[in-house]
């Protein structure tokens, strides 16, 4: 079974600064995907960024980037130029493909990020 650990229950950052959220995972799988989702108070889970385990290059989406260390099983999220709208709960998630058409996500416990003006 896979486990995902987010060791920072809460973090805060000043607007326009950079913050890094940590995530580690444990798996014996070789083929998997990693995601960061954000969940604002409106409660909808929004996909932030995706990383394929077989890719060496770290994924980037605008102000969001990851540091993927496969050997260390580490997958951190860096948010640059933080904005007030980034305030949300952030979840790290591991996706295991199930055959040709199935998949399941395993989530961490989440990190509550607050961006202060």
């Amino acid at each position, binding site marked *: 079974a896979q486990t995902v650990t987010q060791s920072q229950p809460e973090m805060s950052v000043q607007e326009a600064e950079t913050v890094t959220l940590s995530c580690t995972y444990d798996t014996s799988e070789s083929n998997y995907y990693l995601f960061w989702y954000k969940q604002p108070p409106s*409660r909808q889970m929004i996909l932030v960024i995706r990383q394929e385990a077989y890719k060496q290059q770290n994924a980037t989406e605008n102000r969001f980037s990851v540091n993927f260390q496969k050997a260390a099983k580490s997958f951190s999220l860096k948010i640059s130029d933080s904005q007030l709208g980034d305030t949300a709960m952030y979840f790290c998630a591991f996706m295991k493909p*199930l055959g040709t*058409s199935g*998949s399941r*996500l395993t*989530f961490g416990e989440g990190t509550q990020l607050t961006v202060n003006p």
Partner: protein
Amino acid sequence: DAGVTQSPTHLIKTRGQHVTLRCSPISGHKSVSWYQQVLGQGPQFIFQYYEKEERGRGNFPDRFSARQFPNYSSELNVNALLLGDSALYLCASSLGGRQPQHFGDGTRLSIL
């Protein structure tokens, strides 16, 4: 384009009752997954369906069941409700396989 839609948004039930939650996936998505999110925790995987067949099941009791219809919409059924079933139930859809899952706003289920 419409995202994943779930109904109802909020539901209050009493112990022992039965509940049905509904989900409509993004147009073109054939995979639907269900997750339970207890307050203060990350979501837990319940079921995944693709082309009307169950492709994955999490560690939930048999009181939980689901199905997917020909139009790819889905229902999650929970029988004999317990206080511990109080949670946000999230539905996610995807094109299937390795494609990312996109979530709806969830149904908040409260058990009295």
